């Protein structure tokens, strides 16, 4: 995916890690700053604070007053955004290559100088509550919030990144500012640039713009560990509606664990490779067992590697006229099957080719290349998936069977039903 010899990986004296990769296929550059903070770093009563800080990063600094950041990027023919996950917060600008400097100036400025004007905090509170209410309108989202909260008793992965509504009412301007000061700074960030760049010139400019930002103290580490689940947990959400939704989450391993490649293969066997690009699930097991049999209208498995142990997930939509119990029984028999029978060599080969193709599609965009490197670095090491296809190809059918037996146990899962009333 990313060959080592063309990536410049270095640190400034203040701790800012920099990853630069020249790609000259189009006159475009993608500039990303990643911070090691997300839902994972939040305390009870302050959930959603990382995402709210992300919103405030568009609300102005002394050099780029409110509204200017987006406007300046647009004016220069670029696009930008920010997003917050459970493990990280990221910002990017993708621009015509000769406009990279603007992106660098914005990111260096807001790394230390965002204002958090109290009036802006007030107006953004209702925007974020509105964002949450938009999600609440979606029954599958509402079910997922309950399922996560039930699956995790201790670890912060149990709350949605947007946070609980009461917390969004209660978080103060000072809470937000303190969170910003604790987690934002060169010591807790990674700058990733991929595109049509002159590496030497960009290195000089990064030193000028970021080199003088002081490093803060190391942020507190997350030490919470989820206790081993002892028995199956179930969520039944019964609300007005017309459609049933099913979810099941099994506690799984973290990104640095050696099982990660096996779980990615297991995911692909259930519902096709999913590294971006095209959908490949309709020849996979869950579609055959749940959609072609007309019990569901969709069904998929997903595993997203995370810093701390996350979950291996199943979800689906029940076809009108069928029941959640039928859906669950059909899914369970597919899970039992993978624990008993070895996956065929042809199925494994298909998944490998799908992965190879999907990575090729995804890497056509410089923004995706930068996103891939930054994401992996947040999980621990941007080189982690350098030989992804080879690592996946090394997974055996027996490895997959053993992983299914290890993780996909009913005592390790939380099942959620949204049953229309």
């Amino acid at each position, binding site marked *: 995916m990313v060959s080592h010899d063309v990536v410049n990986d270095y640190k400034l004296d203040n701790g800012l890690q920099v990853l630069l990769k020249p790609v000259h296929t189009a006159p475009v550059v993608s500039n990303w700053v990643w911070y090691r903070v997300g839902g994972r770093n939040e305390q009870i009563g302050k959930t959603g604070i990382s995402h709210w800080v992300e919103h405030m990063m568009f609300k102005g600094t002394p050099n780029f007053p409110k509204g200017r950041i987006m406007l300046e990027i647009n004016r220069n023919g670029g696009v930008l955004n920010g997003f917050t996950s459970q493990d990280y917060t990221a910002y990017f600008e993708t621009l015509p290559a000769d406009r990279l400097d603007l992106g660098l100036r914005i990111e260096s400025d807001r790394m230390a100088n965002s204002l958090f004007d109290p009036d802006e905090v007030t107006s953004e509170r209702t925007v974020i509550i509105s964002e949450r209410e938009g999600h609440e309108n979606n029954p599958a989202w509402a079910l997922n919030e309950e399922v996560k909260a039930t699956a995790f008793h201790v670890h912060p992965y149990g709350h949605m990144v947007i946070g609980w509504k009461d917390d969004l009412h209660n978080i103060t301007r000072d809470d937000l500012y303190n969170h910003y000061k604790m987690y934002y700074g060169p010591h807790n960030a990674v700058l990733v640039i991929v595109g049509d760049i002159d590496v030497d010139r960009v290195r000089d400019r990064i030193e000028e713009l970021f080199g003088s930002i002081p490093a803060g103290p190391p942020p507190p580490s997350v030490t919470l560990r989820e206790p081993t689940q002892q028995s199956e947990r179930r969520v039944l959400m019964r609300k007005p509606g017309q459609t049933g939704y099913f979810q099941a989450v099994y506690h799984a391993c973290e990104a640095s664990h050696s099982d990660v490649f096996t779980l990615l293969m297991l995911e692909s066997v259930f519902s096709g490779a999913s590294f971006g690009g095209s959908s490949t699930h309709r020849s996979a097991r869950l579609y055959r067992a749940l959609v072609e049999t007309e019990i569901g209208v969709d069904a998929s498995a997903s595993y997203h590697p995370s810093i701390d142990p996350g979950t291996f997930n199943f979800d689906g939509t029940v076809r009108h006229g069928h029941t959640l119990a039928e859906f669950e029984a059909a899914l369970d028999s597919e899970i039992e099957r993978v624990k008993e029978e070895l996956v065929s060599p042809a199925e494994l080969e298909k998944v490998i*080719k799908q992965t190879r193709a999907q990575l090729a599609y995804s890497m*056509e965009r410089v923004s995706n290349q930068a996103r891939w490197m930054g994401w992996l670095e947040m999980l621990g090491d941007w080189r982690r998936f350098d030989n992804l296809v080879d690592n996946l190809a090394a997974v055996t059918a027996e490895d997959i069977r053993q992983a299914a037996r290890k993780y996909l146990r009913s005592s390790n899962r939380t099942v959620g039903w949204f049953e229309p009333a």
Partner: protein
Amino acid sequence: MDLTFQTYTLSNGITLIVKENHHAQSVVIRGRLRGGANLDPVEKTGLASFTTSLIRRGTSQRTFAQINDTVESVGAALHFSCGRHLTTVSSKSLAEDFDLMVELMVEGLTSPTFPPAEIERLRGQLITGLREMQESTRGLAQRYFRENLYTLEHPYGRPFNGTLESVPTITQADVFAFYQNFHPQDGIFVVVGDIEPDTVYQSLEATLGQWLPPHNPPDTSIPAPYPLEAAKRHVEVIANKTQADLMLGNIGPKRTDDDFYAAYVGDTILGHLGLGGRIGQVVRDREGLAYYARTSLMGGIGADPWCIYAGVNPVNVEKAIDLILAEIRRFRDETVTDQELADAQSYLTGILPLQMETNEGVANMLLQMHLYQLGDDFISRYPTLINAVTKTDIQTAARTYLSDETYVLSIAGPVSLPS
């Protein structure tokens, strides 16, 4: 910027455009045929979409499962879909699998079998999807916006995925009859990626180029929509929701209308620049009423909508509507500022390299250029077209299409809404 490509005409009249890009390992194919939901019989709305979805579900050579296996085994994608005027065929694969994708595509176009079991499977999925849509505030706001703007008598007013009334009535005979609309005349195929143009031509000429159905091409013309004469307001109540979605707007220009570029630059100012343009600035940024508030100017073959949409808490619906109407009034009454115009122009011209970064982006551009007869030199002329738009042009377009008095407003959300 420049864009060089090869153009060919196949024996059956299909135009083929090929753009080599050896930086990427993939090949993208996009094909368009005349006719889409505009050919739906009134009582069978959704038939075009139903038929195109079935094409991939069985041909004389392969079953649905075999097609899925073949496509997915090489990590490719193959889709048949339709819009209001056109049927689209698209694929993406590694270059090494290009011939396979052509074979599957041509097989789908020329020998679909529409198996009864697949018809029932698809019908069940669509019905579940339509039931989900009845719970979607955004989906229903959109549906009733269109229905009120164009009326159910016009194809643009009808939901092209069908309804809970129409989908159960579609038969295999309906589907076969609709398939008779598929015809190569005026068809356009674009291929972009790691491939030689002459090789592509030879491959497509030997396969797609030989497709010549024995029937005539369909008449795809549709009547112009009736202009809106009075304001209409539709409220759809959905229980158990916390947010309401609203859409407000009018019938906009066609892509080929002379004032399209003025509307396009104006729309960028009204609802896109920065955080959703003027609308986003007021509704989201200043008042904090919504997470999203922006505009949409569709401008295709026909007169598509030009509208504003937002998701807001039910108690803020009226306030949001007032703010939106005030912005429309200002957009009509006053010209935009010099700075706004310059910003929009530099955004729309500057973003071209980003839009053309991928094979899909280039393929979409080439399709637009052909479909709307924009000319082979469109990319080099584009900055001139955008920069020629004046403040007065924008105001004229705003007054032509948008109104703060005569408009359709559609709201879907929880019961506390005023109606």
